């Protein structure tokens, strides 16, 4: 035996010891109960005896269907009221009241679900995938605000949408975003819309519903949520104090659809050429850059009625002749 073989043998011994050490936990486990399933069939109450009665499995029922239909009815009703308050009554206070009421119901009570913004993805997927069905309620919630926008503009945004309402309430000192920057940023929402639809219609393994995942305010409605989304939501609210409704104007994909539809609107917030004073107070009052050359732009107007509240003709009728 050579001297070189000695250390080799000790290496083998060492390796064996290490192996044994690695296997040791398994040995400890093997000392547990040697488990064998004692029964092949579930004993029923007759077998168990002693007056035992098998309890029912707890089955909490979902929300009643009529309540879901009520949501749809309330949505339609709220949009009707919004149109009436803003277009006919021209009342900023009442419009704000409706916004707060809808924030309370659709936002904090219904916790932000069901929402037309997220339903874009469901509708897109249901159109693309023959096996994917969506409830009738979702279809209704998706189309109703679009139909209203076709006739009266974005009444949903101003009157009903809880995400919009969150931002509506924090508008403190809005600055006018330069027109070109406003237009350029406004294109972002179409990019987001395209991206959301593209990701939603993917096969299940790659599918993602980004609008819901990156909803900045739903965490507030539910009083719980991922920390990073709460942070982004708070960021939007802080930004919203100086830039009016940043999410709605630059990111909301449903806002993009509504904006397209509202181009065709028959009626809406209007500054009538015959009665105006050319004072430009309304344009200054609009935090959303929706008054251009003293004319309301339907596709940008978010139905807040601030222009009417600022108008001397409206506030003191007869003063302007």
């Amino acid at each position, binding site marked *: 035996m050579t001297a070189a073989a000695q250390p080799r043998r000790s290496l083998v011994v060492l390796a064996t010891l290490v192996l044994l050490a690695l296997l040791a936990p398994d040995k*400890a*486990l093997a*000392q*547990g*109960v040697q*488990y064998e*399933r*004692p*029964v092949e069939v*579930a*004993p029923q109450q007759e077998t*168990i*005896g*002693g007056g*035992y009665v*098998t*309890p*029912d*499995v*707890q*089955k*909490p*029922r*979902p*929300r009643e*269907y009529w309540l*879901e239909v009520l949501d749809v009815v309330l949505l339609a009703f709220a949009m009707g009221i919004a149109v009436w308050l803003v277009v006919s009554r021209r009342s900023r206070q009442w419009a704000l009241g409706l916004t707060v009421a809808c924030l309370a119901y659709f936002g904090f009570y219904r*916790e932000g*679900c*069901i*929402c037309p913004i*997220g*339903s874009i*993805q*469901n*509708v897109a997927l*249901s*159109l693309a995938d023959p096996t994917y*069905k*969506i*409830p*009738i309620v979702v*279809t*209704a919630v998706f*189309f109703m605000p*679009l*139909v209203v926008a*076709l006739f009266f503009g974005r009444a949903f945004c101003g009157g009903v949408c809880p995400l919009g309402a969150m931002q509506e309430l924090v508008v403190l000192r809005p600055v006018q975003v330069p027109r070109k920057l406003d237009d350029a940023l406004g294109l972002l929402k179409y990019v987001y819309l395209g991206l959301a639809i593209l990701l939603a219609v993917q096969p299940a*393994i790659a*599918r*993602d*519903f980004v609008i*819901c*995942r990156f909803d900045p305010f*739903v965490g507030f409605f*539910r009083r*719980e*949520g991922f920390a990073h989304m709460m942070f982004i939501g708070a960021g939007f609210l802080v930004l919203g104090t100086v830039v009016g409704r940043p999410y709605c104007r630059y990111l909301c994909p449903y806002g993009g659809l509504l904006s397209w539809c509202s181009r*065709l609107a*028959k009626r809406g917030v209007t500054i009538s050429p015959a009665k105006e004073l050319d004072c430009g107070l309304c344009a200054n009052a609009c935090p959303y850059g929706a008054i251009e050359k003293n004319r309301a732009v339907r596709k940008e107007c978010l139905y807040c009625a601030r222009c009417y509240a600022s108008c001397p003709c409206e506030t003191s009728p007869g003063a302007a002749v």
Partner: protein
Amino acid sequence: MSDGLTRRDALNRVARGTVLLGFGGTAAFLIEKADGQVVWQVDASRCVNSRLGEVGVPVCTLCTTECVVQQSAVRAVNNFRECGRCYICPAYYNIKSAVDEKGLPSEKLCPRDAIERQPIGMVDPGDPANNFYEYIIDDEKCDGCGICVKGCKEPLGLGSIILKVRHNLCVDCNHCAISLACPKEALVRQPVADALEPTLATHSTR
């Protein structure tokens, strides 16, 4: 001028009509496809924790981590009709833990201690191994991690515990966040009547 305005109005009207028709058609297509009220539910035959034939994979806890509700709306449910009522329940006890002085495993399986155990029927206090036991999962404590579901699965148990969406907790998202994460597409929309019934997991090819 007035002529131009009316032409514009007419064009607008035509465009609006076209868009409305488009909306109507799409909505009709979607409604035709839909079938009444549907809710999210876990398909036990797809869920990796409960379906048969899925061996050697770790417990999937995505239902706990992905749900938008803080303490997930998915909870484990024991279907009492199918429960073996074992003395040593593989979902209640960690059957790999060391045996204590009573001859029972020393550790429980549930990390939240949500399963309660009590003898039922004609109880023989002198011979605990000869009694039937009821295992009740505390709805308040359970967060749907699925560890007990896997514990109860064949061949160890009878597979009476499965994961279920609790509809009183589920906010019925447009698209369930768990379903997006679930590798087996086990979160499905079901008609209410089906979704409430406890089912037994089967083999699945998905």
